[in-house]
């Protein structure tokens, strides 16, 4: 399941993020790569001690925190702190890989990566190439969104960022543990949620069938969620 969400960041937030990033120093993306990824990962990343990283993380999480679509799609339980990367010049691609399943959380313990999200911070016109290509059970999708928009997809999918041949692609990416670990179940819940939204709109919240279907949604969530 792949869901794109437009304008996660407001224009002001986007401008602010870009300003902070412009004032930041990049290091090789190898710092967060697992042993296998070392072979395919060739990009740059903001180091953990980057001066503006806390502000950038607050900004991104603040935006996601108020986005209902993001919640409905990801059903996030724990979100790992976002990272920022840049593809440009010689460090311009990240070959096909699957994200590591378990990650150490800064506050201790492990977080299982169920869902990945990328928030685009460069506009598509600012670079050539750099397509996020996601191969999931429904086929291969190329994603290149306008700055401030986000894509949410299963961490279990195999994905890559194709080489950036001109310009620079800056993005924020993050992993989260979902209440519903199974991608198919998450998708069913999301589809049901969206269909229910339309129903609630057209026939009203208090319609008997809507009430019972809403109950079904919650009961499925009860069945599948491990929060």
């Amino acid at each position, binding site marked *: 399941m792949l869901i794109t969400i437009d304008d996660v960041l407001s224009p002001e937030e986007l401008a602010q993020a870009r300003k902070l990033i412009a004032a930041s120093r990049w290091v090789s993306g190898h710092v967060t790569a697992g042993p296998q990824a070392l072979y395919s990962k060739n990009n740059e990343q903001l180091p953990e001690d980057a001066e503006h990283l806390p502000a950038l993380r607050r900004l991104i*999480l603040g935006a996601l*925190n108020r986005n*209902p679509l993001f*919640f409905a799609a990801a059903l*996030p339980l724990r979100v790992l702190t976002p990272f920022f990367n840049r593809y440009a010049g010689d460090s311009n691609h990240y070959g096909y890989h699957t994200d590591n399943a378990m990650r150490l959380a800064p506050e201790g313990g492990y977080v299982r990566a169920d869902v990945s999200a990328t928030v685009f911070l460069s506009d598509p016109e600012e670079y050539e190439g750099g397509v996020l290509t996601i191969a999931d059970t429904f086929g291969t999708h190329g994603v290149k969104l306008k700055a401030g928009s986000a894509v949410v997809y299963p961490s279990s999918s195999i994905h890559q960022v194709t080489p950036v041949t001109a310009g620079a692609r800056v993005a924020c990416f993050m992993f989260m543990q979902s209440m519903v670990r199974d991608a198919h179940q998450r998708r069913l819940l999301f589809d049901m949620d969206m269909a229910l939204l339309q129903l609630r709109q057209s026939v009203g919240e208090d319609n008997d069938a809507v009430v019972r279907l809403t109950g079904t949604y919650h009961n499925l969530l009860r069945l599948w969620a491990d929060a």
Partner: protein
Amino acid sequence: MKKKLARKPAAQAAAAPAQPVRLLPLGAALMAGGLSLSAMAQDTATPAPKEKALSAVTVNATTEAPPEDGYRATATRVGKTLQDPHDVPQAITTVTRSLMEEQQVGSLKEALRNVSGLTFNAAEGGRSGDNMMLRGFYTYGDIYLDGIRDTAQYNRETFNLEQVDVLRGAAAMLFGRGQAGGVINQVSKTPMLVDRNRVTGSVGTDDYRELTGDFNKVLGDTTAVRLNVMKRDEGSWRSNPATGTEPEIHREGAAASIGFGLFTDNELIVSHQYLRTDDNPDYGISFDNATHKPTKRFDESDFWGIDQNFDESETNISTVTHTYRFTGKTQLRTQLRYSNYKRAYWASAPSNTVAPSDRGNAPKTRKSDTDNLVLQSDFSTEFNALGMKHELVTGIEYLHEDSVRWGLLNLGTNARPYYSSSVVNRASASKYEGDTYSVYAQDSIEFVKDWKVVLGARRDFMDAEYSAVRSPELKFNENSYRAGLSWQPSEYAHYYLSWSDSFSPTADLYQLSGGEFPPERSDVVELGAKFMFFEGDLAFRTALYRATKDWERNNDLESTASILTRKRRTDGLEFELAGRITDKWEVFAGLALMDSEILKVAVNRNATTGVVTSANPNFKGERARNTPTYTFNFWSTYALGNGWKVGGGAEGKGERYGYNPSAGGTAAFNPNKAPAYVRWDAMVAYEQPKWAVRLNLRNLFDEVYYDAIYDNGGFTVPGTRRSAILTTEFKF
């Protein structure tokens, strides 16, 4: 969310507790807990630093800017070829850049306050955005940018405009399908062969802030590039008493153009214009059903909108213009344009019974996405035949329009709605796709000395499809004509009699003929005179006209009524003055008297049942909507010497009606009425060759006035209260 302007600290404090709306998708109900890193997440982004004051500008050029035209335009293309407006046998008002700059005008709407006989509609539904009436007829299909249709619904800005030409009268022969009032043509700035840069920064009351830049750089003998940028934020004197939320305007735009072979026989200009708007829309206040006047139950400063409301648009317009000059007066001018207009809004409508709350009221939502592709090519030449002088212009045009619009999906509850610009109600999609092919020719013949006759004809082939509840195909082949007789006994006087017509099936404009009725038909006959005084420094014009329209339509396909009036007419008299009385004294003024009347009331056929109904017979003989019996405007400045300049003016409109003329029943005619008003403005400036400071005062006497009326009558939008804007300008 959006950066919110805080007019006063109290309003800000009241607005602060606003939480993200909770009742959303079911999954989003889990948002209440926040993300697991909630401590971090809830401490939202660090506030954006305040915009820096303009840094000092380095003066790096010694060339003086060329003199401005002032208020009298000396060139227009609104008659199809580049002409002096004095020579066009039809009424034209041109709002020049000098006038717009002196008035610190930002939006097209504000610029058009200088045009007599023009009134503003408050917007709703698919037609929000710029929405003007000209001589009492709507113009939303008649807004052009460089002679090319710019009919998507959005709020236009003037930062990249050289001037705005308003050509009155049916103009289908020149522009293609349209209505009786005329066309509003915006003229873009283009590269010049002189280095010239201008930067302005403005601050004002109600959190007004604007920065603009206009940079022109010569790159070679005939090559130059020009860049215009703008960013403006505005708050309002109105606010929601429950939350402190104010209507807001946040606009930014950039336009770049590059010209090759400028002023040579082979000229190419490539341009792109980008505009982003991010407003909190103001739907004004309600009429009171008992008094038919703007409600007194609530204060004029009450705003029904909430913080979450939005009106966002993004417009991208790319144009290539090629001009090839053969010899003398023979040239071929070709324009290719691709434009995309995206817009989404959620507005709260005012109420006469429900006080503004923290939940918004009667949500109005819309999202639309429009793509237009235009190719037009004009060939113009001059020759002598049969002992007479001919000026011939012929052209072809292809227009492809592709648009879709939706309502937004309520992500909240009925009691507390919530809409996102990215979630549409897919069930509500309406699509329009159309191809129009046009061919036209016009000859202007000087048959005896000083006497000219203009004859023009055009044929439009329109093949379109509109898909909503019903999906008719629309095929129209329509002719339009233009004829004029001119007598120019001297360079400074022009008397003319003209006639022109137009048609409009108007399927692209969120409305449709429905197949059961013919397209709208308009024709205008006009007797006019244009004079130039003081060797052309001051232009005066007057026109007496009769504009008639058949099958006036308005509603979209989902409605059962599509015809507003079967026949309607405006008779009018206009006077305008533009230019310089002395070297120091400039003036721009207009007066329009309008007598409008519904001649035949609407006849409509119910889309589903086929039942034919007539509108209320009492509408017959009554005055048309939003067509006051008079409008006037004047603006004048006087240079006192030593760089000081003072100026001021007024704009006024008579009482305007708002009602639905296609409504049935037999009730007595008793429309909602927006009262007459006069708004006074003033200006004082200190100007030096390289810099200037200007103070604009708007609505000097702090009048509460209503300048926009929803034409069906529900509500009216008050204009600005007293406000001040201080602008500094640097030229280098």
